[in-house]
């Protein structure tokens, strides 16, 4: 059993169709509800994905260090006698205006460093990696997947023959188009013909208050580009077996 990887090099929210009735080369096809070029997709989709991953990773590390490392370090300090309860209470004099200025400078510089660390580093990473389309196509989907995994967004579901619609479909209606892991068994494997991941087809107008006039205004008619669903099509109704999915 070998894995075959199909990729598209625009890192945007794509429609994906896997058609098992077609030959191997045409089995997977991508298309896009948005009309973005490569550069726009890199900064509107890949950059937020990588930044989210970077921030969530650090939140996890901070929680891990506060739960495990800091108490362990404090225990070690108590055990070796370097830290005592008396030493934690300090009787320092009130700070002078000069030291307050220095403190303010330190806080501002720390903020600037934090902004650079959490947004600048992903931006630089995104800029350099986007020069190589193949690397970006490897990194961005996995960054999205690991972000969903770390934030607990992944859902697991098992479908049996009772869950099929009348026209032999299984529908995941609320699908964020981040990740879908499917595993068929029995008749589900035999009859699975096509998997479709597409956006719901609807249009709408946004209503907002004018900034100066405070009058209600309507935007232009917009197509839905963000709400997706996944549909499994079966050629016959499966009786035995099941379909296991993990998705977000």
């Amino acid at each position, binding site marked *: *059993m*070998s*894995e*075959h*990887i*199909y*990729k*598209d090099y625009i*890192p*945007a*929210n*794509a*429609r*994906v169709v*896997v058609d*098992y*009735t077609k*030959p191997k080369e045409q*089995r*997977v096809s991508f*298309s896009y509800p948005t009309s973005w070029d490569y550069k726009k997709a890199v900064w509107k989709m890949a950059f937020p*994905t990588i930044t989210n991953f970077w921030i969530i990773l650090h939140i996890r590390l901070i929680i891990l260090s506060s739960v495990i490392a800091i108490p362990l370090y404090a225990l070690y300090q108590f055990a070796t006698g370097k830290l005592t309860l008396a030493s934690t209470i300090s009787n320092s004099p009130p700070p002078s205006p000069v030291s307050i200025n220095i403190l303010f400078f330190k806080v501002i510089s720390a903020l600037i460093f934090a902004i650079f660390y959490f947004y600048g580093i992903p931006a630089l990473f995104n800029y350099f990696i986007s020069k190589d389309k193949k690397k970006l*196509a490897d990194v961005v*989907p*996995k960054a*999205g997947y690991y972000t969903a995994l770390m934030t607990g967004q992944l859902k697991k*579901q098992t479908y049996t023959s*009772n*869950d*099929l*619609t*009348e*026209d032999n*479909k299984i*529908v*995941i*209606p*609320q699908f*964020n*188009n*981040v*990740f*879908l*892991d499917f*595993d*068929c068994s029995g008749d589900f*494997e*035999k*009859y699975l*013909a*096509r*998997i479709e*991941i*597409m956006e*719901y*087809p609807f249009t709408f107008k946004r209503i907002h208050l004018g900034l100066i006039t405070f009058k209600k205004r309507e935007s232009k008619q917009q197509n839905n580009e963000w709400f*997706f669903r996944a549909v499994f*099509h079966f*050629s*016959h109704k499966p009786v035995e077996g099941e379909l296991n999915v993990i998705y977000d």
Partner: protein
Amino acid sequence: MRKTPNNQLSKKGVPKMRDFVRRAIFQISLSNKHPINGHKNTTGDKSLALFGHSSHYSYLPSLHSKYNNNNIDSHNSDEVKTMSEENKGKEEIKKKKGKIFGDPMVILDE
């Protein structure tokens, strides 16, 4: 909200306690249903239809039949043919499993 039928109203025109209890039982049973493809009433419990919530279960298939008639993409117009027709002279795919990332990347076991 569903209008309570006359035979379930008390003399003062207020819904009988029985109705409230049945609604409560229905709400509990609804929460235990399949959270995603719950459109089918597989338990055979007729009380589901009584409370007018059958629409809750049926909206998905109708939505998708509408979707497929819309033809927003050429993929939708394809009809699913039977596997026996399609697999004539082709190598049979033994295992159907894989991972789909929407960003996009698809990894299939083939």
